[in-house]
């Protein structure tokens, strides 16, 4: 009896206070400027067009390509299966589920690298993981994947291999066709894709 009274006198006022104050919606976990600078210096956010092309060809289900350009530009041309999150809308709560998650491998792209990099910096600063930037952007993508420059016949083997992979990827993605064997080449020269370890979830119970 007495214990209940003590509990009630303590917890009801606290409940009243907590009901009256506005909810704290800030996210205290953020990267410091130094930590972010360190990541920018090492360039961990970049992923090369070859890696992305390979993931597209392998139909990697974890790949999520995100176009951060405006909706107009997205309508004119976009990478296959990409979604459009214009940079100006990146903080819109509708997109948070896409950006703050630990399953998909998000790749931002814009025409160059600038907008995509800004999108990455904003999301990284919020502590989101698994977001990457397409190195060189669409311009470099078109240059390397859609219209790769043929190496000279005297070039080293790996140059020719790389060219064949790009040509194959370009073909698979609707570029110009040439006489190569894209499927075998794509397999034999698969670039290393490092995936982040998923966080283990803690489960509780009685």
């Amino acid at each position, binding site marked *: *009896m007495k214990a*209940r009274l003590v*509990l*009630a006198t303590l*917890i*009801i006022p*606290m*409940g*009243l206070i*907590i*009901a*009256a*104050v*506005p*909810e*704290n919606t*800030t*996210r*205290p*976990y953020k990267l410091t400027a130094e930590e972010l600078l360190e990541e920018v210096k090492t360039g961990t956010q970049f992923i090369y067009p070859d890696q992305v092309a390979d993931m597209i060809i392998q139909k990697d289900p974890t790949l999520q390509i995100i176009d951060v350009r405006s909706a107009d530009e997205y309508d004119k041309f976009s990478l296959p299966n990409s979604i459009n999150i214009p940079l100006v809308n990146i903080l819109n709560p509708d997109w948070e589920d896409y950006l703050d998650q630990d399953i998909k491998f998000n790749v931002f792209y814009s025409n160059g690298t600038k907008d995509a990099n800004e999108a990455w910096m904003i999301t990284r600063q919020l502590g989101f993981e698994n977001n990457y930037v397409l190195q060189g952007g669409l311009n470099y993508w078109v240059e390397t994947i859609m219209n790769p420059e043929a190496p000279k016949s005297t070039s080293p083997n790996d140059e020719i291999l790389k060219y064949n992979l790009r040509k194959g990827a370009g073909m698979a993605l609707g570029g110009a066709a040439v006489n190569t064997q894209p499927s075998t080449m794509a397999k034999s020269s698969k670039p290393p894709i490092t995936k982040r370890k998923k*966080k*283990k*979830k*803690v*489960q*509780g*119970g*009685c």
Partner: protein
Amino acid sequence: MGPLIVYDIISDNANLFFAFLIGIGFGFVLEINGFSSSRRLAGMFYGYDTTVLKVFFTAAIVAAVGLLFMSLFNWIDLSSIYINPTFLWSSLGGGVIMGAGFILGGYCPGTSFCAASIGKLDALAFIGGMFIGIFIFTEGYPLWEDFYNAKYLGSPVLSDLLGSSRGVLTLLMILVALGMFWVGEWTEKRFARDDYKLNQK
């Protein structure tokens, strides 16, 4: 001030160590509240002892108020707290099975270990039954896999469903809990048993 513990700062092993300490604390609280007595636990269902309800609801409202205050002071990031996802049908089915086992055996999984550690043989039998259940579940998993994964609701939160703020909902829960304690103590008198003295250990 940042959150108390950021996920990636402490290693998995340090995490386990903290879990171990918290586990000892949990077991201690169970034991001093007499949760290793199956009569006390079963009393919840017959109404002659509602300690289980009081202890767990006190824990819930104290934790809720504590977390909201910590969030208010920026000590903890509520969005990084893991909420067990809800699979509606398996939650209901599991609840029924667990409740039936609870009445029959007189323990819940945690308290059975608590009671076994002070040497109660019925708790050992209960733990044996639990492992048989685990064995049946895992070996027969393909049979109930669909049921197990049906009706996935994500991690719904009551305050979102009701459209109220967390604070208001917590206040509401506090009032509901205190009301239930009152009802609980009424049933303890109403359904009191001659052979059972309250607060026996």
